[in-house]
């Protein structure tokens, strides 16, 4: 699979709060993300889980109403004070909820990031295409049509292409924002399988509305509710003996 493993990287949020205008979306969240784990983030709508995810690679910067307090560290560097947004986004990739390839060929989609980063070496670019597609479990399906439009792929294939596109940047951390919300069960299974394989080399954060998915793929799970981190623990403990009643209510489907 991936030949050279990126260095193991951790992230940590300390008393992290987010506002959009006057509305507070996150309330003093403190949470660490361990190297080469899948951290599942669950919670009902408006719980702040997506806000949290987008805080991790500064995707909120484009929103003029965004305001924050606290600190998020990537390998002990403060990503909001010591690094610039572009650098952070190169090291922390994100896969969005909807499979959205750019209207270009499969190859061009994957090479979008590396080329803009300045990679010009043909052989190296070719290798990146193959390696990223293999890591996203899509290589076998598209190897003979890399130059056809990415828009012709099925939804599940498009989402795996989006994963490959993110991996081609060779990030340290990959964020998944409900990556299976638009996919059928078989495609979902493939994407989940891919995520578990990626864990060997990357640090992953998975925001999902599907608690069963969190149970299937996460090592640890964080439960958010109304902008607060209610509970964080190993997947096993969270799904069998959560400490907080609200966590229990949510995972057993009593609300949300």
């Amino acid at each position, binding site marked *: 699979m991936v030949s050279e493993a990126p260095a193991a990287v951790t992230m940590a949020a300390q008393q992290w709060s987010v506002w959009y205008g006057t509305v507070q979306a996150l309330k003093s969240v403190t949470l660490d993300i361990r190297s080469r784990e899948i951290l599942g983030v669950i919670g009902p709508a408006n719980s702040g889980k997506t806000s949290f995810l987008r805080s991790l690679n500064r*995707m909120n910067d*484009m929103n003029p109403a965004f305001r924050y307090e606290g600190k998020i560290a990537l390998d002990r560097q403060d990503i909001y004070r010591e690094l610039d947004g572009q650098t952070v*986004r190169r090291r922390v990739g*994100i896969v*969005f909820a909807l499979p*959205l390839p*750019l209207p270009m060929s499969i190859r061009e989609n994957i090479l979008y990031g590396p080329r*803009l980063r300045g990679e010009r070496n043909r052989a190296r670019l070719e290798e990146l295409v193959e390696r990223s597609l293999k890591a996203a479990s899509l290589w076998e399906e598209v190897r003979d049509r890399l130059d056809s439009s990415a828009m012709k792929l099925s939804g599940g294939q498009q989402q795996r292409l989006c994963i490959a*596109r993110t991996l081609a*940047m060779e990030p340290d951390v990959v964020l998944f924002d409900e990556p299976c919300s638009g996919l059928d069960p078989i495609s979902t299974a493939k994407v989940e399988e891919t995520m578990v394989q990626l864990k060997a080399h990357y640090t992953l954060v998975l925001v999902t509305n599907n608690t069963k998915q969190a149970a299937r793929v996460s090592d640890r799970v964080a439960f958010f509710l109304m902008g607060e981190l209610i509970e964080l623990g190993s997947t096993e403990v969270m799904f069998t003996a959560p400490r907080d009643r609200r966590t229990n209510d949510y995972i057993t489907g009593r609300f949300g």
Partner: protein
Amino acid sequence: MARPAWQRALGVQRVAFVLLFLSTLLIVIPAVAIIGTITVRGMGAVSWEFLTTMPTKGMRAGGIFPAIVGTLELVSLTVVFALPIGIATAIYLTEYATDNWLTRLVRLAIVNLSGVPSVVYGLFGLGLFVMFLGFGTSLLAGALTLAIMILPVIITASEEALRSVPKSFREISLSLGASHWQTVRHAVLPFAIPGIMTGTILGIGRAAGETAPILFTVAAFYLPRLPDSIFDQAMALPYHLYVISTQIPNIPASQRYGTAFVLLVLVLSLNLAAVILRARFRRRRQW
């Protein structure tokens, strides 16, 4: 006995329908009349010779070659000035500007520019380019004047084209580690090009057909040669048509209709090209 209310309502509806339909029909009449008359009476005058030779006998005979060349040169030069500034402005307004007093002022200026009568552009060009900047009556002064006139068209069309590129493209690009400018350059602009081109062609069509802005800035009554630099005067189709229609006695009608026909074909084919381009782009786009 009075008719029941519903029958009256039906009658009113019929009358309204007929009136609306007639109004619509009315717009077709001048279009058909103008294009028809000029085509019927002008097509006969157009020959290879008419298109490629100099006017002779005080413009009462011969061709309109210098006017065609002048218009093409004028229009090309106009695009050279208007397109970069127009696109740059549109990019700034859609991708960078925040809503503040300066942006609002710029938008107000654009709206107002598009409402200025063309003769005012002509006088403005005369004052600024011909006299103040000392370009004289020249292709340069005329092209700059026309460029200012079509800038609002290009800016508005480009803005619309840029805005029609999905917001998600920008997010994706940024998430892949692209800078703001790289995002505009690689994830937005390529998908807006067809729309920008459509707007530009419509602008060119307008520039090619206008008389007033070139009247004082570039147009030569008669020039026995082609312009040899951008500081030279030039003949142009709309002005040539005006001259031979009003300033020269005893001129055969075929000369006038021929010139009008050539101008009409030029402007209409530009508009048609814009329409076709837009249609093809809409069919082909994938998002």
